[in-house]
């Protein structure tokens, strides 16, 4: 009897352990990504959310300029995913401090830093949910959406909350600020135009799926994708729909626009070129791998860069969609690449190298961060 029950007991314990491990995904270290990190290029510098730090690197060679916090082991500010927002004076970033212990909860903060030095200016802790994509600067405000369903507008000088706008679901989209209007989508299937000074609704458009991308603006028309597999063209003044284009799956990232063509990728890995006036498809290139983020254009508009989940960066000819070159990387590519005149920068998650600079013409690696062999962990 004893032996039988002992075996049964051990078997049950084994099953339980397997259950716990299986469901927890055997998650390891504290900074294992649960989202994607973003990067942006402003002037000669590259600003990257790099999990425990904000890294500012020289775009030319990847040399570190400053990082925040300087020493995350001793002075942790949480995990940074959201793409930094940068203007002449400020770098504004958002982080999530994971819960420590069973009864604590994650803290979510927005940090304003001095652009030249990385010195901390203020912190805002008023949101209850995770910041996923980052915010935008304009009119003396920093505007950012949060998973708690609110859009927050903070005074850029003091960090004081100027207004909030409540939606019915998570807000993961980066807003677009044009003069005195904030354009932002929510997962409540609405796309809003808000008054920048007070958060009042100017118009709102209801789609049939969540909005998570930043709109592209061209000649008074906004182009934005949604989780209803559609790419919408909306009148920027009224919110009226001009046309919609149907893809195969969600348009998660933001579309790119050049001349009269809109470029967008759905999560199935289909890249589309669509006529901006009519919404007609010009070409389609199926990459065959899931794509999370929107594409980025080269400065001359001749190439389109799309990162896929398998870590490959694809360069497509904007004329016909043919792949000019593709460059594999270790990890996953889930954020939009940043592009300068001759270099395309990619942010990888789950890989040994987190930022790579590749030549736009052929994908040749110019530098990588951390450099090969440099042990940062």
């Amino acid at each position: 009897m004893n032996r039988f029950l002992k075996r049964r007991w051990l078997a049950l314990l084994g099953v339980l352990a397997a259950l716990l491990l299986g469901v927890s995904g055997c998650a390891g270290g504290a900074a294992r990504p649960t989202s994607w990190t973003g990067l942006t290029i402003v002037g000669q510098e590259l600003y990257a959310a790099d999990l425990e730090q904000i890294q500012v690197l020289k775009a030319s060679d990847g040399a570190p300029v400053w990082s925040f916090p300087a020493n995350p082991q001793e002075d942790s500010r949480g995990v940074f995913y959201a793409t930094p927002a940068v203007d002449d004076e400020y770098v504004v970033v958002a982080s999530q401090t994971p819960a420590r212990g069973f009864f604590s909860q994650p803290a979510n903060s927005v940090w304003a830093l001095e652009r030249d030095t990385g010195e901390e200016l203020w912190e805002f802790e008023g949101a209850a949910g995770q910041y996923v994509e980052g915010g935008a600067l304009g009119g003396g405000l920093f505007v950012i959406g949060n998973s708690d369903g609110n859009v927050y507008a903070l005074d850029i000088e003091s960090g004081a909350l100027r207004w909030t706008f409540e939606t019915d679901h998570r807000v993961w989209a980066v807003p677009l600020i044009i003069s005195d209007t904030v354009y932002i989508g929510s997962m409540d299937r609405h796309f809003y135009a808000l008054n920048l000074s007070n958060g009042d609704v100017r118009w709102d458009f209801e789609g049939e799926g969540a909005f998570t991308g930043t709109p592209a603006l061209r000649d008074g028309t906004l182009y934005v994708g949604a989780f209803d597999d559609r790419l919408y063209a909306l009148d920027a003044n009224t919110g009226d729909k001009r046309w919609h284009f149907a893809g195969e799956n969600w348009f998660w990232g933001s579309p790119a626009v050049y001349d009269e063509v809109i470029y967008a990728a759905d999560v199935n890995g289909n890249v589309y070129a669509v006529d901006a006036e009519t919404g007609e498809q010009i070409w389609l290139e199926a990459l065959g791998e899931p794509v999370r983020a929107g594409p980025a254009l080269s400065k001359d508009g001749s190439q389109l860069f799309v990162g896929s989940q398998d870590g490959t960066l694809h360069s497509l000819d904007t004329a016909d969609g043919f792949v000019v070159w593709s460059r594999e990387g270790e990890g996953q590519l889930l954020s939009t690449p940043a592009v300068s005149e001759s270099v395309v920068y990619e942010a990888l998650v789950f890989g040994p190298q987190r930022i790579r600079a590749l030549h736009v013409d052929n994908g040749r690696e110019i530098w990588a961060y951390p450099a090969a062999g440099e042990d940062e962990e």
Partner: protein
Amino acid sequence: MFNFIAYPLANLMLLLYTYLGQSTVLALAVLTLLINLLMLPLTLTQQRSARKMQEIQPELEKLQKKYGKDKERLAQEQMKMYKEAGINPMGGCLPLLIQMPIWFGLIGAIRYSIPSTPLELFQFAPHIYKWLPGIVGIMPLQSTFLGMDLGQPPNSTQWWSYALPILVFVTSWLQQKLLTPPSTGDGQSQAEMMNQQMRIMMPLMFMFFTLQYATGLSIYFVLSSLVRIVQYYFAQRGQDGEKVEGRRRAGLKQAK
């Protein structure tokens, strides 16, 4: 690992959500119920087998004492006893093995349909069956229930969300208590001690586990335990019925 089960179940969850008034909790409840119903034959086989095993334990112990040194003979006699009692020695284990991937799959399905991280949502995106009616555009589900975000762990802002892990503990403890048969021994045996430990350990582990994970999972654990308690209640009634029937027949025989 169990995505081949998790993805179809997550899609079923989306379908239920679409047709049950876009209520995540209702969809979760019906999904849990459906899976439990589907597993009912296996669960009953397992419970019956465990009960029979329990019944013949004293006999097995006697055999062990008798043939303890002669392993081969002991095995033969044990097999004989199993055969006579109509027990398949694997009867308790096999249904469990078949069920495990489905339970893992179901937990995966809950994580995909009520994702707590952006990466989980992205992982599920290419696996949504677009051909299912009414499914386009419904992700991510509206996951607020009683002011709690079902995609997030319990937190002190919504202090009442801590009630869920406590409920997980209570219901799984009750389930353990009902499903682990009481020992017939003197209460000091190793087996009984192990049973007692299990009754507390499992619910405790579930509780700590659900403290760290999305509250949607807690709701699933509570529902699942409740379903099994109800199942147990009905199985027990059936068993009592059998016993009554048995006594009635025995009585008839004696009367003859």
